[in-house]
């Protein structure tokens, strides 16, 4: 089979053809566009349905595993560490601590934002330590945010809540109250 190994090192086999955006705009290269209509209806399931319904009522619900004693947010039907069903539902508080944060200047499509937004992992009071969720911070200047800051959820008015994570508009510093 073998003809023996060649002594070559790392050059690309051929130069590729690099394109600039103008090549598309000026039709120097042929291409096809596609805008497929691809949609899903995600089943929330047992735990997340209950969690979302709780948000609609202005509550944050967690589940507890009696084996490892963790109170888990977001809630789940089973404890992934003990591999057993979660034992009970617990309502936790709508206050928490900033575990880490970022000041984002770009939107999901990497376009610049007019106003930077502050995103954070917030561990929830009443849940086990480090049990956090991803959310946004508001009513605070970006340079005043720090890790360890206490925050409180700012809810949408009850009539506007739809049982989504966005029923919490953002979290604001607790001491401002």
């Amino acid at each position: 089979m073998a003809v023996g190994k060649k002594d070559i090192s790392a050059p690309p086999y051929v130069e590729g053809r690099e394109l600039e955006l103008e090549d598309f705009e000026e039709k120097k290269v042929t291409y096809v566009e596609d805008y497929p209509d691809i949609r899903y209806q995600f089943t929330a399931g047992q735990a997340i349905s209950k969690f979302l319904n709780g948000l609609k009522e202005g509550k944050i619900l967690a589940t507890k595993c009696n084996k490892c004693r963790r109170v888990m947010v977001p809630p789940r039907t089973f404890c992934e560490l003990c591999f057993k069903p979660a034992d009970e539902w617990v309502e936790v508080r709508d206050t928490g601590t900033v575990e880490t944060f970022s000041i984002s200047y770009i939107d999901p499509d990497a376009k610049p934002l007019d106003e930077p937004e502050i995103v954070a992992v917030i561990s929830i009071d009443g849940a086990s330590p480090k049990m956090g969720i991803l959310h946004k911070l508001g009513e605070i200047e970006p340079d005043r945010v720090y890790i360890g800051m206490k925050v409180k959820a700012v809810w949408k008015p009850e009539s506007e809540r739809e049982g989504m994570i966005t029923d919490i508009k953002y979290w604001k510093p607790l001491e401002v109250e």
Partner: protein
Amino acid sequence: MVRVAVVGAGYSGFNANSPDLSWKEITYEAAVRAYEDAGINPRRDIDAVVTCAEDFWEGFAIFDEFCPDQLGGVLKPTFTVTADFLFGLANGVMLIKSGLAEIAVVEAHSKASDILTFGNVVKFAYDPVWLRPVGRGHPFYLAALEKSYYSNLRGYCDYTYAEVVAKNRKNGRLNPDAPYSADLTADDVLSSEPLFYPLRKLEIAERSDGAVVFVLAKGDIARELNPEPVWIDGVGWNSETSNYDTMSFTAVYAMKAAEMAYDMAGIENPAKEIDVAEVDDRFAYKEVQHIEALKLAKAGEVDELLESGYFGRKGEIPVNVSGGSLSVGNLLEATGAQKALEIVLQLRGEAGRRQVDAEIGVAQVWRYLPTATGAVAVFSR
């Protein structure tokens, strides 16, 4: 030589939809049953977890993120194969033979009911430059073309495919997990509308939800866990090409995959040695192709054998005694899982009212439109 066995199998049941459970919960249910069946504690005992999923069946960009928790695989060697369960099974076998694992878990699931635009997702797999922009028709046109090409080549008529549908949908009536089972005749099939001429609606498997989990173990450990495990004697997989211009349209992929699996299993005369087979029948003509490819019948002779009941539940080689995908539903990447599960249940003697007498069984799957890729696994007791 290291042998590999199935020591645990669990599944969630197969349903046309499952509005109450998320894919994580369905999988967890199957996993709990599999671990109970194997008598192991996943958090302590498993060395590797293989999951099988495709992003766009799930609605994600990187779906494998969502795999470890419900399988007890957190912080364990867990990974995803973007292929059917039988490909995952092949990896489980390789992991054990290469010494990377002694107990490995393989999982696949379908949450097909979450997909709102199934046709568009299938079409999204078509070559974006050469094929996808052609026409507005439903992507099943490719299956229709293949059926037409293959029938002309072999001289099979539509009655043969209608018989496949009738056989499988009737078989499904003895399977409590076959939501599409029905008492149908070949004439009922032939009189249904050819929506994708020459393909009729009743020749196409509808979609289903469900999850399957297998626990595999290295020979000596398998015997400790279960004195009579089901052995995986051979696995094989093959791809013809991704281009429609070089495809055979005669399931050569399945033939080569079967040759690889038979070779590993030491099977020389499949038609004599194999007692039961579950083959991919997500389009009725595919079952006929796959029976030929698995060498259970000679090319061009499947029609007569079908008519004589050779592949029936009480026939010489029962094929799709579970009801196949035509009864159970298209389980996407878990299709091969349902087929392997049926073989394992049959070999264990746990197939209930549809039990057949079998010592060696084969499961085969195709990777659905638009591919010419498939896998085969041979099991024995």
